[in-house]
């Protein structure tokens, strides 16, 4: 056998739409936890948004946070249980909009946590409204004629912001639309988790993702659209990695 879904990803069918990037990341996270042997030492925090039910699928201990507050929960948990692997799993609305303060301050306090950030440039769960990361010109339910600077301001590159914070150790932007990208994203999650266990500071792994339902495209077309449009604004790759010097 060469491939099988990780055991920690249980058999409960996931509620995500067909082709959703969340599903792929939901495989990578438990794969890394299993490989690190941290199954019985992980405390995860789920957001409000499409991933609100992450706790139903990945068999570790979970706390379900209020909208945007996951990094606050994680900060406390990690300080109270320093030998546990503590991470949050958040979307763009949760992390880069309502929870901006919690995100920035947890990262800048150098909390030894990892934030996994799914950026699909739209509010998926509530039905496809504009997100802080929605691209200019992109149409959503609340900017049906396309995002315009004069009406809605600019999309937020919160990962770039995070890379400028003294408290962050590893800040990277990945995607999961090809096999190669998925393998890189998995290595990034592993590195972030390892740094957080080594007490090197806070880590942010952004995954530029698709929301084919919200974007109103087929999953394959959404991947193509993401390559052509999202990557131009949200450049892939490591923005910061100070873990190896510390």
């Amino acid at each position: 056998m060469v491939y099988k879904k990780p055991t920690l990803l249980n058999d409960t069918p996931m509620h995500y739409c067909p082709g959703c990037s969340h599903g792929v990341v939901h495989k990578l996270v438990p794969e890394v936890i299993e490989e690190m042997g941290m199954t019985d030492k992980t405390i995860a925090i789920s957001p409000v948004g499409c991933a609100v039910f992450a706790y139903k699928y990945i068999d570790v201990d979970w706390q379900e946070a209020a909208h945007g507050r996951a990094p606050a929960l994680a900060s406390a948990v990690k300080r109270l249980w320093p030998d546990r692997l503590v991470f949050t799993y958040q979307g763009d609305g949760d992390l880069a909009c309502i929870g901006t303060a919690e995100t920035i301050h947890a990262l800048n306090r150098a909390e030894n946590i990892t934030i996994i950030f799914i950026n699909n440039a739209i509010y998926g769960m509530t039905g496809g409204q504009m997100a802080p990361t929605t691209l200019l010109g992109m149409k959503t339910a609340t900017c049906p004629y396309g995002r315009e600077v004069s009406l809605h301001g600019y999309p937020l590159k919160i990962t770039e912001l995070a890379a400028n914070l003294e408290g962050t150790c590893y800040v990277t932007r990945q995607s999961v639309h090809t096999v190669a990208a998925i393998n890189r994203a998995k290595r990034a999650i592993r590195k972030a988790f390892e740094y957080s266990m080594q007490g090197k500071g806070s880590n942010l792994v952004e995954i530029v993702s698709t929301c084919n339902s919200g974007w109103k495209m087929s999953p394959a077309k959404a991947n193509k659209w993401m390559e052509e449009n999202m990557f131009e604004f949200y450049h892939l790759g490591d923005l910061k990695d100070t873990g190896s010097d510390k």
Partner: protein
Amino acid sequence: MARMKGAVVVDTERCKGCDLCVVACPLDVLALTGKEVNRKGYNFAHEVLADTCTGCASCATVCPDGCITVYRLKTE
């Protein structure tokens, strides 16, 4: 010459027919069913060129629902 022989097992009830595995397969081993649907009403992925599969696991890697298990055998 040694050659890799692969086999793909799709959990068809878990499959949502997103088509990403079909697109990811370099050898067109997989396709979605035409009319047949699973209990949730999705067309699902299945092997159409089973002999061609090398077990590269691209399909399983990109599958968002973890429906695919891949086996590989070295043959002479």
